[in-house]
């Protein structure tokens, strides 16, 4: 009896855990099933999680045609790449200054940087929109990117990364007369690649998924990003027929990050754990 109980409990616990996991995954399972379901299946059973026997790509075709998803992909890619490119420069320079140089006011400036972790950009959308208008960047992709060009998290992460590197290589390079920029570019950054990649993953995810700020800055449809397109699509969906198309559209928005995540799971998880350890 005792032996049976000993084997029974873990089995029950595992079954329960799998049930919770199934519940957790069900919104995604539905998205997958519904997006491949033919239109004629009837909207009454639209919620069924059982896959249809005759999968179709029609929903994806409709989604791609009705929203200008191609354009939204391009705009989102521009925003994500533009933010990341500028950030790599600003956080590497600032991270190097905080990790390797000593100067009056360093601690104070470091705290001033950390302030951005508390006053996150979404909290300041109202004054930032005015600033963007003043700068003539309203309704432009650079206007969407500008508030993110400086990153306290990235600076902190690069500082930690630089601090963990041995100083021998830099000292050797400095003795050979290498200037500071050559030391950063040729000596430090190649060794700091894991830190940069971790930062890139967090930055790309954040800006791919961002919605509220682009929604405020962008007005013309030609500048819409994926999340804005999807939101317009969702709020426009009313008749029962369109659920498959909505599921397909949602899948199109989520797919690139999802594929990247499944391919580089370890790196994503490590980066996200670090992204929390920023305070």
């Amino acid at each position, binding site marked *: 009896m005792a032996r049976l109980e000993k084997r029974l409990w873990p089995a029950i616990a595992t079954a329960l855990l799998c049930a919770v996991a199934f519940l*957790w995954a069900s919104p995604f399972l539905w998205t997958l099933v519904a997006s491949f379901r033919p239109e004629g299946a009837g909207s009454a059973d*639209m919620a069924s999680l059982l896959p249809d026997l005759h999968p179709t790509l029609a929903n994806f075709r409709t989604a791609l045609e009705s929203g200008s998803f191609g354009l939204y992909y391009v705009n989102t890619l521009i925003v994500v790449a533009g933010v990341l490119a500028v950030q790599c420069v*600003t956080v590497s320079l600032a991270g190097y*200054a905080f990790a390797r140089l000593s100067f009056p006011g360093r601690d104070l400036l470091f705290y001033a940087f950390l302030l951005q972790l508390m006053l996150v950009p979404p909290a300041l959308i109202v004054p930032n929109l005015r*600033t963007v208008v003043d700068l003539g960047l309203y309704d432009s992709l650079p206007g969407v990117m500008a508030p993110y060009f400086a990153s306290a998290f990235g600076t902190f992460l690069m500082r930690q990364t630089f601090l963990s590197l041995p*100083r021998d290589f830099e000292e050797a390079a400095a003795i050979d007369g290498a200037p500071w920029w050559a030391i950063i570019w040729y000596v430090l950054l190649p060794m700091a690649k894991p830190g940069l990649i971790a930062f890139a993953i967090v930055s790309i995810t954040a800006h*791919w998924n961002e919605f509220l700020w682009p929604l405020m800055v962008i007005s013309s449809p030609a500048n819409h990003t994926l999340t804005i397109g999807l939101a317009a699509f969702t709020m426009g969906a009313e008749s029962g027929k369109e659920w498959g198309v909505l599921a397909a559209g949602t899948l199109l928005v989520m797919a690139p990050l999802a594929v990247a995540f499944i391919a580089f799971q370890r790196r994503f998880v490590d980066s996200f754990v670090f992204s929390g350890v920023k*305070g």
Partner: protein
Amino acid sequence: MSVASTTPVDGIGLGRAVSVRSRRLRLLPYALLAPSLLFLALFTYLPVARVAVESLYDKPHGTGAAVTFVGFGNYTKVFADPAFRQAALNNLIYAVGVLLPTLVLALAFALAVQRSTRLSAVLRTVFFFPSLVPLVAAASLFFFIFLPGVGLLDYYLGKLGIHGPNWLGDSDIALWSVIGLTVWKNAGYYMLFYIAGLQNVPRDAVEAAMIDGANAWQRLRFVILPALAPTTAFVTVIALIQLLTSVDHVIVLTRGGPSNATNLLLYYIFQSAHENFDYGKAAAATLISVAILLAISFGSLRIMERGARGHG
């Protein structure tokens, strides 16, 4: 010993060239910080000063009327606005209503999947996955899940013979539906921190408790939870900041309704500025939320310091 270029040689007696070079090196750190500081000033420091000043003025939209100084008039207006009070109360319920179940689930998930088996790896992915998708995409999915009658939730509840309420249309239920979505979205993210935190729980303390005859619940309550206190404090702070500063799902699903039942502080700010064009009100509400964010951050810093000192 630091890098030669970072310790400027004293210029005295070494000639003019060296002194110019050393001055340049003294300015180097500031030059390296300048690009970051420029954007921080433009989009983090100045905006706070800007809303602080502009919240004292009234600027009627589109009438061309002159800007008038109203002192704390905008704050009086905001605090007297029933929609603001409702949004503040909702945000409090939302924050507590999301935080508690999220912390419990995150810890439960972490305990369940911490071993490195293949099943654990799959479950970790399943639980973490919602935090990777855009909040807007999550809202789109839940738009269908919450759909009355034919949606995913009602469809399967119906098979069990349960008739669900109008998840987003009933003003008593809507906020809890939004809370449910957010718990689903965030629990897996915080699970990662608990998995990392569990690796730092001293193994011999757990084993000692086991030898002393502590059961699983007692080990959790008296050994593991105290050891995880820093993780819990940290997760609480980042969660609270997040719960005050993201309303994408509210915009897509409910637009704050029905009758302000799901209005949150940031949505109120967004609405004041973007839909009602009441800039003074939006500025005042922004400054109030900045004050709350700073209070959470600095309050938590002090609590964490005290905690660290308490643990020696």
